[in-house]
């Protein structure tokens, strides 16, 4: 009998899904993914989470509710650090506890701690700890991981190589992966731009090595992985000047964005005249406000062609 492993379609799923999926499948497990975010998942999440939490965390709760009855295991790793000397948002570290104490009747949770703060060598041990739920053979587990990692790397590269057609305008839409790629949460913002015949780029399309090199030049210690990626991206864009506008998607109450969003905005406004707009999402699902802001932003970007010289950089 195959074992079912549930992966909630939320938070770092958007970053690591190819890896996780391939790893579990290589070990002979069946991966059950929660549905794409919908009204029910959204509402379930809001109902079952502490009020103060941010929406991505609430959505995670909703996605857990969506699959918890169908699976033998739920994969909710305790992600403390995914790069050396860097942390990640505190809520990710306490996620298994948040779920355990908020939702009843859960299957077994695989809550292995992923902590690469001191060194990346520990990853083997972590992988074995996750794998032991499905196989006793350590070699088998590690080989499953290696193959999965290879696939993950290729997928990432394919994303970088995705070149847009040479449309007239190019807009960077940045933010955490779970803000950018959850289309229900961001009300299809990416598509809305594409519908206006705009090329959309995201931080995932830039080579991470380039991003890291730029981030190194930043004054001050960027000890959050998200911060390094987004600030590196910003510095790259400001230096190359290869986009016509920058959109930052954030959610209300996001602790990381309260810092990173501010640093990004100040950097762009001071060092360039690229138009910038911060879109903050919350529990509203009315699209009119977002539409208006996107339209106004694009109008402004296009007006620049005609009146290049005297438009201020304030989106």
């Amino acid at each position, binding site marked *: 009998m195959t074992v079912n492993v549930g992966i909630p379609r939320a938070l770092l799923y958007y970053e690591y899904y190819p890896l996780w999926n391939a790893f579990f499948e290589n070990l002979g497990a069946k991966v059950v993914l929660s549905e794409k975010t919908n009204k029910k998942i959204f509402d379930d999440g809001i109902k079952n*989470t*502490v009020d*103060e*939490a941010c929406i991505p*965390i609430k959505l995670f709760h909703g996605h857990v509710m969506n699959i918890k009855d169908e699976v033998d295991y739920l994969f909710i790793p*305790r992600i*403390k650090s995914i790069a050396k000397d860097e*942390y*990640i*948002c*505190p*809520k990710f*570290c*306490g*996620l298994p*506890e*948040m779920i355990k*104490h*908020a939702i009843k009747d859960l299957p077994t949770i695989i809550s292995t*701690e992923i902590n690469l703060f001191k060194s990346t060598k520990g990853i083997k041990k972590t992988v074995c700890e996750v794998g032991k739920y499905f196989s006793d053979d350590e070699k088998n587990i590690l080989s499953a991981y290696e193959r999965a990692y290879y696939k993950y790397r290729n997928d990432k590269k394919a994303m970088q190589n995705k070149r847009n057609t040479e449309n007239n305008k190019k807009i960077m839409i940045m933010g955490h992966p779970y803000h950018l790629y959850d289309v229900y949460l961001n009300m299809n913002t990416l598509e809305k731009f594409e519908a206006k015949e705009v090329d959309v780029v995201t931080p995932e399309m830039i080579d991470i090595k380039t991003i890291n090199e730029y981030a190194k030049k930043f*004054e*001050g*210690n960027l*000890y959050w992985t998200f*911060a390094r990626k987004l600030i590196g991206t910003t510095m790259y864009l400001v230096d190359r000047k290869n986009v016509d506008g920058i959109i930052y998607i954030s959610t*209300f*109450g*996001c*602790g*990381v*964005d*309260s*810092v990173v*969003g*501010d*640093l990004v905005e*100040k950097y762009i406004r001071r060092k360039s005249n690229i138009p910038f707009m911060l879109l903050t999402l919350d529990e509203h699902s009315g699209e009119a406000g977002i539409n208006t802001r996107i339209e106004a932003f694009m109008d402004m970007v296009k007006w620049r062609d005609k009146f290049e010289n005297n438009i201020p950089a304030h989106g």
Partner: protein
Amino acid sequence: MKITFPHMGNLYIVLKGVFEELGVAVIPPPKCNRNTLEIGTKYSPELICIPFKITVGNYIESIEKGADTLFMWGGCDICRIGFYNIIQKDILKNLGYDIKLVTVEPFKSPKEIHKFLEKLYTLTGTRNYLKIFAAFIKGIKLLNEVDAFDQLVNKIRPRAYNKGEVDRVYYQFEETINKAKGYKEISETIKKSKKELQNIHIDKHKDVLKIGIVGEIYTVVEPFINLDMIKKLGNMGIEVHRSVIASEFIKEQLDFLPFIHSDKSQVHKAASDYLNTEIGGHARHTIGNTVRFGEQNFDGVIHLLPFTCMPEIVASSILPTIEKEKDIPILKIVLDEMTADAGYLTRIEAFVDLLEKRKEMKISV
């Protein structure tokens, strides 16, 4: 050179004493007030937590009073406290203030202490480690004295026959401290006020409710942010115990030294059933101390957190389980820029009513 630092409860008394011992002129920021909050909010990122905004306000108010060197907390934590100095530096620079910054990293090893001593040298011009060590020891002493004084206040306030008498002593204490200079004068002021406190006529046999306060350290120790909750509860006849206080916090940073002992391991042990890892900020302490308050048969716990505080949000989702398992009522209060206290007061009063009823029922059974 005139040095200043952000407020965090009564920590200013200690910092002032230590720096004055080292021969540095100190300009403590004015006591946190509405103006501090307004200036702070004006220049801070919109959604950042309240301690950040208040400290920005503190810096600016001190600079206006003539301070030219800032002493601030740096380093790296899972939560955003490690980003404070980067953004605050930038804010102050942009406002055109020409000031020197001294950041202290958390003491995780003796090496960090050495780094700190080098920074101290740039401030005081002394490499006389004996002098620095003496000042440091005096600082630890002051820290303990101030916190012991506060604890005594919290014990006497609910039992005093004349309400307001403790507050009067406290007010005078603060006035005198501001005028005192150096360790000796400060320490004497504390002793004198302590004596006055002990002379207050109290009802020794009064059966008072006991409430433990847990949460993020800044909201627990800074009366302006928590709307003077400790005082309000005290005057309602409740003995308040604060779980995270400045002296304990500093001790935890230094407990690798052989002569310093903190409660850290006990707190972590108490938390281990619910949260067995560090997730930044004071979340683990919140969990551990709530468990401990439950085991010590406190009547209730109040959980304080700044709006959008990431670690405390995790803690607050675990607390309902502890509330059930340890049978201790918990009231969660989220603090932000709201300075009107009526709403909070109503909630606290309702909570206290509930605790009283519970106690009555327990006795009658």
